[in-house]
């Protein structure tokens, strides 16, 4: 195709009049097919995305500048009032703190543990499929069900965990009163659900690593740890970045778990575990102030974009230095 096209197209500009004659209907269809088909094939995604993704995003921006009445579907323009209110609201900053705290408590251990599990599953173990499917099991459980079970375990008075702690002589932890314990409890639910999922993605990346790299490293005298840090980690870098970024986006949008954490679903009497999404929800569906809720949505969007970019650069640099370390080593060995 590419070799014939220049031939037919090349003479065309010189003699525009002759352009029509050589192209039959079929040929023209064929050209359109080449030029347009790819767009046609991806168009369903973009049409659906435009309808259910892009349009709401733009419409949310529109609402964010209004004092909006959901029922009458109308509003009055108020400029940046909604943004100003949100940024001056104590609740907003508390929920931002909570979101980041829960995010760090969940994503960091989650990725470390997931990498470890993936590395173990990558070994030659019996009943591979069984263990691999096993780690995915928590992911199948609906988040609300997970939240219900864990909320029960983390009960302040009659929870399973506190009674275990009492049995070994430790005082009850007030999971629903103190800030850090409540974050820890919610992060536990998130980790329970997502660790196995991330482990499987990382495992897939690890399986794609050529085995001769390990052999070569082993012959060079690298131990298990060394092989893990100098072969496995650098090789799964792109997947690692993907996992970190998706878990960042997910982590900043935690909603189900804090909402189901107590029966009120508003994040605690002193906003101990209210996350930004929960704040947004309360603003919209609790107070029916959709202008402010839309403003929160946009602020959250910007935070996620900023954090995602930061994350991307940091991850790239961090893992890049690992690769550099690996590159330096073989030289020394060969000498």
């Amino acid at each position: 195709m590419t070799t014939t096209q220049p031939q037919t197209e090349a003479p065309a500009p010189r003699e525009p009049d002759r352009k029509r004659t050589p192209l039959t209907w079929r040929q023209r269809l064929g050209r359109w097919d080449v030029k347009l088909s790819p767009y046609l094939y991806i168009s369903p995604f973009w049409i659906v995305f435009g309808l259910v993704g892009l349009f709401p995003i733009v419409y949310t921006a529109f609402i964010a500048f209004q004092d909006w009445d959901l029922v009458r579907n109308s509003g009055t323009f108020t400029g940046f009032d909604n943004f100003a209110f949100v940024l001056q609201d104590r609740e907003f900053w508390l929920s931002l703190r909570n979101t980041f705290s829960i995010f760090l408590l969940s994503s960091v251990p989650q990725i470390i543990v997931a990498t470890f599990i993936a590395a173990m599953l990558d070994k030659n173990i019996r009943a591979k499929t069984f263990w691999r499917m096993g780690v995915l099991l928590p992911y199948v459980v609906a988040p609300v069900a997970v939240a219900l079970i864990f909320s029960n375990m983390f009960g302040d008075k009659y929870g399973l965990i506190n009674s275990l702690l009492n049995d070994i002589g430790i005082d009850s932890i007030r999971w629903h009163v103190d800030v850090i314990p409540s974050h820890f409890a919610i992060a536990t639910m998130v980790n329970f659900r997502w660790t196995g999922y991330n482990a499987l993605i990382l495992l897939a990346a690890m399986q794609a690593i050529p085995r001769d790299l390990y052999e070569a490293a082993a012959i060079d005298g690298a131990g298990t740890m060394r092989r893990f840090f100098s072969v496995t980690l650098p090789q799964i870098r792109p997947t690692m970045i993907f996992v970190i970024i998706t878990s960042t986006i997910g982590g900043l949008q935690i909603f189900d778990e804090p909402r189901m954490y107590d029966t009120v679903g508003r994040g605690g009497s002193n906003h101990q575990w209210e996350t930004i999404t929960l704040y947004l929800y309360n603003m919209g569906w609790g107070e029916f102030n959709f202008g402010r809720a839309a403003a929160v949505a946009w602020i959250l969007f910007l935070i996620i974009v900023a954090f995602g970019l930061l994350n991307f650069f940091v991850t790239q640099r961090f893992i890049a230095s690992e690769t550099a370390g690996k590159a330096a080593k073989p030289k020394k060995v060969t000498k």
Partner: protein
Amino acid sequence: MSLSRRKTALGFAAGAATLALALAGCSSSGDTDSSAAPSDSAGGGDTMTNDEPVTLTLATFNQFGYSADSEGGADYMYDLIAEYQELHPNVTITYNVADTSNTARENFFTKLGPGGLADVEAIEVDWLPEAMQYSDLLADLTGGSPDGDWLQWKVDAATDADGRLIGYGTDIGPEAICYNADAFEAAGLPTDADEVAALFDGDWDTFFEVGQQYVDATGNAFYEENAAILQGMIGQLEAPYEDPETGEVIALDNAEVKDVYDTLTAASEAGLSSGLQQWGDDWAAGMANGDYAVTLCPAWFLGIIEGNAPDGNWGIANAFPNGGGNWGGAYLTVPAGGENVEAATELAAWLTAPEQQAKAFVNVGAFPSSESAAASDEVTSYVRPYYNDAPAGEIFAERAAAVEVSPFKGEFYFQVNDAMVNALRRVDEGTMSADESWAQFESDVTAIG
């Protein structure tokens, strides 16, 4: 069992079919006719009609006591939906039940403007003030009242400034005091329901004095949490948080509100409150384990105690501090944009008529807002075996008659109340002192609006 399940499945199928057809049909009446026919044949119901066949949709939440099939309840004594369809062979009712009042609220306000609500929509008193702001979008039901014997305050709350009645009252929640008889015995207090009622006869001071007595004797907390008692105390103030004239938030200037707050936080410091948050797991377990001895209980609360403490020994005292109080209740509304407003109004009126209210009470304990229903034999003879055969119907009829005040609830009622509940909980939890928490409440309330 399997038969009724199959029936439910069929009902769902029929419902889905009618819904799909109704959606496809949109506005022309010809389509509505055609949609009724297939649903009838699918449901196997009566198809014989003189009047034009019509499909009505009814949407409620939790358990209104209308039909066990749709509400997922145990055995109800009556099936009101089937009854209505028998009386009106041309009417097919598609009955949808939301799992919680919150789900229903979101659905209601999302569709109230653009359309798509059921022909008859139930709303809860908690969000009635919000619905009242859009009373023009709901049909005026003033003329259709069956015999107008609803409690006056129930009617007033659903009547807008122009005098339009937008909802027919279904149930109310007249409150009594439920007590754990075993815990009372351990504290040396009387356990007989009449004696306990005499003990609580008086105002809130009496209530807290008994509480202090109980705490001194046992060292245990007396009631569940401050926020639960707040509900009873605030419910007796005419205008707790907002000015009925202007709609302005006056919670911070209202000395009565501050009084309630001070009384409750003082009681909390004296150890009366267990601090277990209502509806939480610990709260439910605490009911069985005797962590607290009393709870303010409306009629619909009885089943909850039975569920949480199946082996417990609870009683109902026919008393309430300062007379009476109401907690909860609902209305049936007819969205004005619906296709079958007239037929829907008829259905709503029938469901809220005295006879049906009495039946719903027998089904699920939804206490009638109709005075003649409350006085009917069916209600007054109602006995609850769990509470040592307490004459529940009689008790709650008396409690309903004692309700004098219905507090003014405006646009901001629930935001302010929510801030107040949080303020009390912070003190219960010990995260803030009473003064700090009040200061936080002040800044929360200032931000509202």
